[in-house]
């Protein structure tokens, strides 16, 4: 059984470590905030200029001057800080963020990521995605393994314009987890979703990947 969106977020949350500074993208990655393990201190960074992002406000707490990178009203936790967008991106590009979790349209077997434009369709812009994949220490991608037509989104080469080249460290899909082996420049199949076999992954993946270890069962 492929993972649900909530289960994907739960699996991605297992990449969090105590004290981490983390940037979460829009979509499934945003849900990861709901699964921060109890007792673990994780600081969420919002690239418009906030470190220490809290949950959505209660109605009386709404402040139009306090929003996240998705332009949603949010709160700031005790210990939070506000800073300008240039300072925020210096934080991202300077390697001061431990982990970012992003969605993607395509991933190549070399760890390239495409998630910002489809030729022929209206281009809305890349926002901060290119900065995050280029600057953050560890880049985790969470996505559905196949598109709506059932075609593999994990490809030998991306067909869409890239957001970043050779930058993805871990790929979590609804079928499996693949970890980049940086010495070989290829992903390795390391985990299978409950009820998914290595043959299922093989059949639904166009990319080449390393399958030289017995994959573990993904715990969600």
């Amino acid at each position, binding site marked *: 059984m492929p993972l649900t969106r909530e289960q994907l977020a739960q699996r991605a949350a297992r990449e969090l470590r105590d004290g981490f500074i983390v940037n979460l993208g829009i979509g499934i990655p945003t849900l990861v905030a709901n699964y921060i393990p109890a007792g673990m201190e994780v600081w969420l960074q*919002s*690239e*418009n*200029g*906030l470190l220490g992002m809290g*949950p*959505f*406000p*209660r*109605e009386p707490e*709404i*402040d*139009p*001057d*306090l*929003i*996240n990178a*998705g*332009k*949603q*009203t*949010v709160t*700031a936790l005790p210990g939070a800080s*506000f*800073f*300008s*967008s*240039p300072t*925020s*991106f*210096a934080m*991202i*590009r300077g*390697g001061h963020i431990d982990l970012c979790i992003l969605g993607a349209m395509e991933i190549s077997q070399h760890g*390239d990521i495409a998630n910002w434009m489809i030729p022929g369709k*209206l*281009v*809305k*812009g*890349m*926002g*901060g*995605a*290119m*900065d995050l994949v*280029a*600057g953050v220490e560890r880049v985790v991608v969470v996505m559905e393994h196949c598109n709506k037509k059932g075609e593999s989104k994990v490809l030998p080469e991306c067909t869409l*314009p*890239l*957001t*970043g*080249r*050779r930058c993805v460290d871990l790929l979590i899909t609804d079928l499996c987890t693949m970890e980049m082996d940086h010495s070989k420049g290829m992903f390795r199949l390391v985990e299978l979703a409950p009820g998914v076999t290595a043959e299922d992954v093989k059949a639904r993946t166009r990319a080449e990947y390393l399958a030289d270890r017995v994959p573990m069962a993904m715990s969600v």
Partner: protein
Amino acid sequence: MLQKLFKTPADAIAAARVKGIVKDNISVMVGGFGLCGIPEGLILALRDSGVKGLTCISNNAGVDDWGLGLLLKTRQIRKMVSSYVGENAEFERQYLAGELEVEFNPQGTLAERIRAGGAGIPGFFTATGVGTIVAEKKPVQKMAFKGREREYVMETGLWADLALVKAWRADSFGNLQYRKTARNFNPEMATAATFVIAEVEAVVEKGVIDPDQVHTPGNYIDAIVVTKPEKRIEQRTVRSA
């Protein structure tokens, strides 16, 4: 003493026009992220000034009936330099019709180009965008840095004729304080234009703002105007209980 305080946004724009700053085909930096921390009154006054052919440097392009969307509707903008413009149907129409030129910059590259421009830095190297269409036709160079060799792309500093910024409050010299995430691009834009107008919610006497708490030193600011902003919210999200 230099009088920086103006009664209305229109007066401040008029003062910039007298100095030869506000005219057709100029470049304008406009602060804000989405509709948060935008100089609402100054955008309206710039619209009413009737200048056209503008190059607007702003992270986003407002929505159809607010922020820079107002200047798109009146066709006063020729080109946008932005990182993301998803929330504006009129923008979409003009862009697809080829009536509006758009230069997409990664958000951090846009931010750093503004910061660099204000700091007198004409160009810098960054890893962002290497291997993507953003780096096409730009110098790319391998450099060793922090114990690792990788490719970097050269980006240029930005400078504009006019910057319109929004702060929480100012003193009469122009020292500014921002509030929460309404800060966004405003402080650096205030450093990167020939003429800078700050729209604020209050002006206080000099000395009221603790020098340790000044976000933008007053020398950057040429004109100040007080307004009561609407502060529209794009995504009103709440939790129950």
